[in-house]
C-alpha cells in the first residue's frame, strides 16, 4: 500500500551505498575539521587574547565618576558662619537634546526675567560653542518661585533640566570681604597650575583672601565612584566608592560683630582701613578695608555690568588696603623712633629742647605742624603733643640707619606674614635701601622728614597694627593671623635694654589720650578704661611753603588721617591701627574711630 522506494538493483544499490558511505565519511571529516577551526578561533580569542578582551569588557562596564568634595565652611571666632555652601537650583542645559537653541534662549528669557541679559547672552554663546553632548550649568540661582515655574513647563523645553548644586554663599555679604576673600569659577590660568585630578568636578576656587590662602585645606579631596553603566551610559549600580574628603572648616580670629561695627565707622569718609588685633597673640579681630564689595557676585561669575561699575568706582574697592595700602605713617612712627633713641642712648628722655615752630638745617626750614611752636619739650611732651621739631633734631643725632635698625624689629618694611595672599612690604628707608633701589646716596635732610614718618616711609595698616601690638605686649614679635587654629612657634622677643624706656614711651602714649595736652585727649574723656594712642596726619604731597588751606584743595589731596593705639593700658587686649584716606587730621577723624572700636570690643572683653 505504500510505495516501494528501492528502485535499484542490488548490485547498483551496493555500489551506491559504498559511495554514499565514503561521502558521509568525507563530510564528517569536514565537520570535525571546521569545528576544530572554530575551537582554534575561540582559543585565540579566549586564551591568547583574553587579557585584551577582558580589559575591553571592563572598560565597557565600568566608568569612573568624580565626587567633588564639599568646600570647608568658614566661621568667625564666635562660630558665626561667614562662608557657607547653600543648595541652590540652577538649570542644566545640553545642546544635543534641544530642538532649537535660539528658541530655548527665548523661553529662558521669558521664564527668568531677572536673569541679566548680558549674562544670558554670554551663557548661550558659550553653549553654542561647547560640544553638543556636554552639559553646562546656567550661572544663575533660581528662586523657589522660578524653580516651580520652570518645573511646570520643563516638558516644553527639552534639553533643559532643573538641578540642585551647592553654591558658596557669604551671609554677611560685603562685610570683611578683603580678609575672607571669595571664590569664583576656575579660569584657564588657574587650571593649568592645578593638579587636575584633585579638581575634577570642582567648579570654583579661592580667588583672594582666606579663600585663596587656605584653598588646599578648604577644598578637600575628590572622591571616586566606579559605576557600572550600560551601553547607553545609564548608571546601573555603584561599584567601589572612595568617598570625597570634605574640605576642612576654618575658624577665623575675626569677630564679625566687631568687623561690622568697624566698617560702620566709615561714613563721611569712604576710603581707609582699620586693623584690630589681640596684641598678646596676633589674632586679628577686625580687618577693614573700605570700600568693600559683595563677594556673592563673583561665585557664579560676575556679570560685566557689575564688574565694570566696581572697576570704575573711584574709591577702588578692589584694593585690599589693609595689606596693600601703602601710606606714610606720619606721626604714628614717633613712639618707635623715640624708643629707639633712648634704648640706644642717643638722648636722655628728660632732655628738653626748644621748638620755635620749625627746625632749620642747611638753610632749609622744616616746619612743625604747630606754626607757633611747642616751646620747651622733653620726650614725653614731644610724643603727647606730637612735636615735629623735637624729632627733626633727634633724627640727625640718630642717623637714618639707627632709626631703621630700631624700627625694623617692629616689622616696618617687611611682610607681616599674615595668612592672606599678596601682602606688600612697604618701605622702611635706610642708606643701603636707597643705594640699592635708587642708586643714590642718602641725604641728611631725608633723615629729618623720615623721623616724622614722611619721605620714603610707607607702611600698610597691618604693619602699623602689628608694630602697635608689639609695643603693647612688651616686645613679643607676634605674627598677625586670621585663622585661629594654626600652629605657630612662640613669638620672638625684641631685645629690651631698659624696660623703663618702654614704660616711658607707652606712658607718653597714654597721655596722648588722657594727658592735659594730648593730641587726642578729647577722645580719651569718659572712657571706662585707660588706653594708649598716637595720632598721625600724613601729608599726601608736599605743599612746600604755600599755606595749607584745606577747603581750597581737592579732597583727594587732603592729608591721610592716622591713629594707632591699644587698650586697656595696663593689660592690653586690643591694638588698633586706623588709616582714613584724605581724612584730614589724625586726632579729628581716625582717633575717634579707633576709640569706638576699642570701646565696642572691650565692652564684652574687659
Amino acid at each position, binding site marked *: 500500500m*505504500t*510505495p*516501494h*522506494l*528501492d*528502485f*535499484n538493483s542490488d548490485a*547498483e544499490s551496493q*555500489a*551506491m551505498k559504498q*559511495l*554514499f*558511505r565514503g*561521502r*558521509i565519511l568525507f*563530510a*564528517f571529516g569536514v*565537520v*570535525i575539521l*571546521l*569545528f576544530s*577551526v*572554530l*575551537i582554534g*578561533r*575561540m*582559543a585565540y*580569542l*579566549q*586564551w591568547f*587574547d*583574553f587579557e*585584551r*578582551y*577582558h580589559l*575591553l*569588557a*571592563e572598560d*565597557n*562596564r565600568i566608568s569612573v565618576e568624580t565626587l567633588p568634595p564639599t568646600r570647608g565652611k568658614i566661621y568667625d571666632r564666635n562660630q558665626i558662619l561667614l562662608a557657607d555652601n547653600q543648595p541652590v537650583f540652577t538649570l542644566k542645559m545640553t545642546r544635543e537634546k534641544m530642538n532649537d537653541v535660539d528658541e530655548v534662549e527665548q523661553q529662558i528669557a521669558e521664564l527668568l526675567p531677572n536673569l541679566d541679559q548680558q549674562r544670558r547672552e554670554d551663557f548661550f554663546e558659550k553653549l553654542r560653542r561647547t560640544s553638543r553632548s556636554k552639559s553646562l550649568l546656567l550661572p544663575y540661582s533660581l528662586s523657589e518661585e522660578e524653580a516651580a515655574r520652570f518645573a511646570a513647563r520643563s516638558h516644553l523645553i527639552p534639553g533643559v533640566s532643573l538641578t540642585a548644586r551647592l553654591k558658596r554663599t557669604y551671609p554677611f555679604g560685603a562685610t570683611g570681604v578683603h580678609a575672607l576673600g571669595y571664590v569664583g569659577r576656575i579660569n584657564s590660568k588657574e587650571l593649568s597650575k592645578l593638579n587636575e585630578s584633585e579638581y575634577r568636578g570642582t567648579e570654583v576656587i579661592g580667588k583672594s583672601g582666606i579663600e585663596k590662602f587656605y584653598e588646599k585645606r578648604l577644598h578637600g579631596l575628590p572622591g571616586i565612584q566606579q559605576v*557600572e*553603566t*550600560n*551601553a*547607553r551610559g545609564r548608571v*546601573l549600580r555603584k561599584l567601589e566608592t572612595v568617598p570625597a574628603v570634605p574640605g576642612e572648616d576654618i575658624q577665623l580670629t575675626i569677630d564679625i560683630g566687631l568687623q561690622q561695627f568697624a566698617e560702620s565707622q566709615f561714613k563721611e569718609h569712604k576710603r581707609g582701613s582699620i586693623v584690630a588685633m589681640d596684641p598678646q597673640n596676633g589674632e586679628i579681630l577686625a580687618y577693614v578695608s573700605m570700600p568693600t564689595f559683595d563677594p556673592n557676585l563673583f561665585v557664579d561669575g560676575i556679570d560685566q555690568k557689575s564688574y565694570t561699575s566696581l572697576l570704575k568706582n573711584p574709591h577702588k574697592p578692589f584694593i585690599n588696603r589693609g595689606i596693600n595700602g601703602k601710606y606714610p605713617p606720619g606721626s604714628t612712627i614717633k613712639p618707635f623712633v623715640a624708643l629707639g633713641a633712648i634704648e640706644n642712648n642717643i638722648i636722655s628722655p628728660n632732655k628738653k629742647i626748644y621748638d620755635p615752630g620749625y627746625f632749620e638745617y642747611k638753610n632749609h626750614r622744616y616746619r612743625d605742624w604747630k606754626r607757633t611752636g611747642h616751646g620747651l619739650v622733653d620726650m614725653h611732651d614731644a610724643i603727647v603733643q606730637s612735636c615735629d621739631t623735637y624729632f627733626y633734631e633727634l633724627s640727625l643725632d640718630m642717623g637714618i640707619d639707627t632709626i631703621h635698625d630700631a624700627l625694623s624689629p617692629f616689622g616696618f618694611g617687611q611682610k607681616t606674614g599674615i595668612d592672606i595672599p599678596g601682602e606688600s612690604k612697604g618701605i622702611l628707608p635706610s642708606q643701603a635701601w636707597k643705594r640699592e633701589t635708587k642708586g643714590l646716596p642718602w641725604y641728611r635732610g631725608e633723615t629729618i622728614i623720615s623721623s616724622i614718618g614722611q619721605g620714603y616711609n610707607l607702611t600698610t595698616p597691618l604693619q602699623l597694627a602689628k608694630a602697635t601690638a608689639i609695643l603693647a605686649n612688651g616686645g613679643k614679635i607676634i605674627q598677625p593671623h586670621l585663622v585661629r587654629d594654626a600652629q605657630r612657634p612662640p613669638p620672638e622677643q625684641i631685645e629690651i635694654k631698659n624696660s623703663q624706656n618702654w614704660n616711658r614711651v607707652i606712658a607718653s602714649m597714654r597721655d596722648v589720650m588722657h594727658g592735659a595736652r594730648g593730641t587726642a585727649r578729647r577722645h580719651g574723656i569718659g572712657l571706662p578704661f585707660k588706653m594708649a594712642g598716637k595720632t598721625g596726619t600724613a601729608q599726601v604731597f608736599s605743599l612746600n611753603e604755600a599755606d595749607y588751606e584745606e577747603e581750597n584743595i581737592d579732597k583727594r589731596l587732603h592729608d591721610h588721617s592716622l591713629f594707632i593705639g591699644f587698650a586697656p593700658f595696663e593689660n592690653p587686649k586690643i591694638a588698633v591701627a586706623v588709616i582714613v584716606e584724605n581724612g584730614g587730621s589724625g586726632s579729628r577723624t581716625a582717633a575717634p574711630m579707633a576709640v569706638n572700636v576699642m570701646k565696642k570690643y572691650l565692652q564684652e572683653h574687659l
Partner: protein
Amino acid sequence: MKIALNSPQTVYRKNKGLLEALHIDGWLLLGILMLLAGSTLLVYSASGGDWDVVYRHLVRIGFAMGLMLLFAQIPPNILYLFTPWLFGIGILMLIAVILVGDVGKGAQRWLDFGPVRFQPSELMKLVLPMTVAWLFAHSSFPPSYRRLLFGAALIAFTAGLIVVQPDLGTSLLIAMSGLFVLFFAGLPWKVILGAVFAAIVSLPIVWHFMHAYQKQRVLTFLNPESDPLGSGYHIIQSKIAIGSGGIEGKGFMGSTQAHLEFLPESTTDFIFSVLAEEFGLIGVIILLSVYVFVIARGLYIATQAQDNFTRLIAASLMMTLFIYVLVNIGMVSGLLPVVGLPLPLISYGGSALVTLMISFGILMSIHTHKKMLTK
C-alpha cells in the same frame, strides 16, 4: 562508529520499548535535549533573568517537540509522495511573498495568515533538499549529468526566489542544503572542483549585484574596527564578550556584555557570545561536542537508511545543521560576515526551531520506519 554501535535502537528492536513505539531515536533525542536545556539556561541569562522570555521559549520548545514527534510518525514513503506537492506549494508561497509579503527588517520575508505569520523560506529549508532527494530516488548510479543539471536548476530557481526578497544569507544556505543532496547523490569530484573554481572566479560579479547593506556587511566583516560605532559595533562587542570569557568563563548569569546591553541580539543571533562569555572556552568545547554528537548520530542514521531518498535527506539535513552552526559561530566570532542567522537549537526564536525539530522528526522517522525484510 562507537556511538552508533551502542545505540539503544539495537536493544529496543528486540524488546519494543516506549521510544520505539513513538518512533523516537533515543541518542538523537538525548543530544537535542542537552542542547535545548543549555538553550533555556542561556536564554534565561541573556534576557537578564526574564522568566517571561523563558516561559515563551519553553512553550515554543514544547510546540516544536510536538511537531518532531508528529513527523517521526510519518513513514518516509508518505513524505516521498507529498514532496513534489510541498515543493509546488513552497514555490507558490515564495512568489506570493514577493508580491504581497510583509516587510520585516527591510526585507519581504513573511506571509501574513491572520494570526500566523509564516516565513516560506523556512519551509523551503526542508522542502528543497527533499525535492532534490526525490529527484534522485529513482536515479541510476552514477547519476546522469542531465539529472544533476536538473537538480541544480531546481536549486538555483528556489534560491533565486529567495534572493530577491532580498535575503542573500538564507538563499545561500537553502542552496547549500540542495547542493548537499547532489554531493551525497554522487556528484563527480571534477564537477565539484570545477564549481568551486567557478564560484571563486564569479565573486566580483556577485559583489556587483549585491545590495548596499550586504556590501557593507562584507566590508565591516573584513575590518570591523573601521566603524566601531556603526556596523562594526556588533562584531566588536561580540568579540569582547567571547574573549573576556576566557577559559573558564564569568559564570552563569555573569555576562556583563549581554546584561549591560553592549551585545546586540543577545538571546537570538548572538547567544553564542553569551555562552562563550559565561562558560568560557570549556563551555564552547562542550557545546561543539554536543553538536558533533548530534551530527554524527544523524549521519549514522543516513548510512543506515535503506533507500536513496531517505539517506540523501538525512545526510543533507545534518550537513545543513552543521552549516548553520558553522556560519553562526563564525559570524559572532568575526570569522564570517554578519548574516542574520540563529544558532540551531540554542537561539531564542520560533520558526528556525520548528524547522529544525521537524527535520529531526524526519530523521527519526527514517531510522525507525524500516522494512524488516532486509534483516
